[in-house]
């Protein structure tokens, strides 16, 4: 029950020093006791403000939804305090004061004036889970929502999880460059949905990848012998997905334990090809209602040592930094960051990688994925009872902020690509300044000598 809120630009007094790296993001949390607390991610979780939202601890039947709005406010909706239709509570993200309706209106108009030239909002399709089915509805102006598609799982299966790509998921490069300088184009569809269904009777779990606009099933995969009492966390980012499940110990399948499946979507199995060869569409902006080519999916499964309860992906401002998978391990009360190179689905199976694959950083596929102790983010501290992991981007491209909450609250800052855009700590600025000064002095001293020598040379008898 928390959300990330950006600091409003007008109020710089909240942080003492200027925040050019964008580390000082506030994590706004709503506790069960009715307090709204803002933690500063850049100052080791220092509490910035702490306001009461309702007086005493009460049981909230519905879970409130916190949303951070671009005008520097945090909106809490679905907050049934008085069991009446209360309007959403709006709080200023920088100071924590609860805004009155007039103040809200002033802020909204100011924000709208500031961003007057907005891009036209594209046609929206909203999909919800109702009566055990996923239903997609088209949002039309001045008309009720029109149902476009409906996805119902197979007989005996129930939908347990619906995941979509993060709302801001910038992609830096539309293709994956291979070792021999060819390109595998990524299947970049912002509307894909990963639906997980289980069947307790048959002990199976099925994963479907749908297109959110047309409801077409792009990919599906089924696993048998699953322990359906364990959660099946899944995540979707850019052009890849990951999910994890536990194999039932009583099942007859040869593999036991917990497994992690990672899959990548490409437009075509052949490099240098956009779309499959059987579907030569013009490359303009298109609508998937008309034609939905299925992506080429490359996926691999890894045996992991312990169960994963939640999955998340690091996010950065421009998507240039590689994305690492964050996993919550409840058995060891830790949060780990798995690098993509360890779980790349294109790892060669059964053979050593060629020189081109080595250039990409691929190693030979090993079915057992050991969690390197250096991947643990919370080191010697224990993060108990984590219920959710949220990631957000800092202004600095190489940094990503991670916030995990549940029983314990844990926040950190990760650099998946090792701080490539920051000067290293061992860079000697004094030495650089000294060299520049010495060169400048040398130039000033030597210049007249060179000029006089050149003039003399003109006067020589040739």
């Amino acid at each position, binding site marked *: 029950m928390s959300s990330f809120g950006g600091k409003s630009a007008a109020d710089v007094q909240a942080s003492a020093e200027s925040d050019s790296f964008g580390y000082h993001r506030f994590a706004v949390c709503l506790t069960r006791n009715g307090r709204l607390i803002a933690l500063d991610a850049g100052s080791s979780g220092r509490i910035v403000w702490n306001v009461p939202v309702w007086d005493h601890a009460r049981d909230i039947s519905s879970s409130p*939804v916190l949303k951070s709005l671009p005008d520097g406010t945090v909106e809490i909706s679905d907050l049934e305090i008085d069991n009446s239709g209360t309007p959403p509570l709006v709080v200023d993200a920088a100071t924590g004061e609860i805004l009155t309706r007039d103040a809200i209106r002033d802020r909204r108009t100011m924000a709208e004036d500031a961003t007057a030239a907005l891009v036209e909002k*594209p*046609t*929206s*399709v*909203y*999909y*919800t*889970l*109702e009566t055990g089915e996923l239903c*997609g509805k088209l949002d039309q102006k001045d008309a009720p929502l029109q149902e476009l598609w409906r996805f119902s799982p197979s007989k005996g299966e129930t939908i347990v999880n*619906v995941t*979509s790509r993060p709302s801001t998921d910038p*992609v830096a*490069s*539309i*293709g994956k*460059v*291979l070792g021999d*300088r*060819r*390109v595998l184009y990524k299947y*970049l*569809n*912002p*509307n894909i*949905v990963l639906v997980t269904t289980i069947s307790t009777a048959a002990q199976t779990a099925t994963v479907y990848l749908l297109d*959110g*606009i047309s409801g077409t099933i792009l990919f599906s995969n089924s696993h048998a012998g699953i322990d359906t009492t364990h959660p099946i966390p899944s995540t979707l980012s850019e052009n890849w997905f990951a999910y994890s499940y536990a194999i039932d110990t009583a099942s007859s399948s040869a593999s036991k334990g917990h497994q992690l499946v990672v899959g990548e979507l490409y437009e075509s199995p052949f*490099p*240098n090809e956009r779309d499959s060869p059987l579907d030569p569409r013009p*490359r*303009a*902006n*298109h*609508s*998937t*209602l008309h034609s939905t080519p299925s992506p080429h999916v490359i996926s691999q499964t890894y045996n992991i040592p312990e169960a994963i309860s939640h999955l998340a992906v690091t996010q950065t401002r421009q998507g240039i930094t590689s994305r690492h998978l964050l996993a919550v391990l409840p058995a060891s009360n830790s949060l780990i960051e798995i690098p993509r190179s360890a779980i790349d689905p294109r790892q060669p199976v059964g053979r050593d990688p060629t020189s081109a694959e080595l250039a990409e950083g691929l190693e030979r596929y090993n079915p057992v994925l050991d969690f390197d102790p250096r991947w643990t983010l919370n080191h010697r501290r224990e993060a108990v009872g984590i219920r959710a992991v949220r990631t957000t981007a800092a202004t600095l491209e190489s940094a990503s902020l991670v916030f995990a909450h549940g029983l314990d609250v844990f926040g950190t800052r990760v650099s998946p690509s090792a701080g490539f855009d920051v000067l290293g700590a061992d860079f000697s600025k004094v030495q650089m300044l000294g060299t520049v000064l010495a060169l400048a002095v040398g130039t000033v001293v030597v210049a007249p000598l060179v000029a006089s020598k050149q003039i003399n040379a003109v006067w020589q008898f040739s």
Partner: protein
Amino acid sequence: MALTLSAPPPRWLEDLSSGPVTTKTKQSFPDPLGYQVASRQQKSSSNKTVAHPRKQPTADEMDTLKLKKAWELALAPAKQLPMNAIGMYMTGNSLQIFSIMMVFMLFKGPIQAVLNIQNTFQRLETDTNRQQMLAVKAAFVGCNLLALALGIWKVNGMGLLPTTRSDWLAWESAREPLERAYFVPT
């Protein structure tokens, strides 16, 4: 205008233009083929002050000689090609300082030679053989282009030319769908 001297020419000038003075010794050896005893002649009104030991070639023969020399000059770069090719093979395809210097030389040499083409052939060019000189110059430029092509092929081998799809990937854009789907949690 013919050069006329009021005084007789100085001794050193006569010695310069005349051959070695042969003293009539006893019949030692016959003279070699083509050897002519220096005969002092009076200056004529022509440009040549004294006669040379050998017959002066005519203007046509001079042209032919100059053309032959020009052809030698023109084909010289082509003779350098095998040496350059072996040098390139030795330096390998990685980006080291030596291979960069080698490639730089391969590019600089032909380009400079082509820019200095006028200087190179200036002293060999006369009014009469200008037509043939064009062919010679074309051959010279062609040989230098061959050397330049070798440099470009080397740069391609090092992977520096943008010939593959991945080099132009930044200019390609993704296809955006016209609609966006949002999940509404209940």
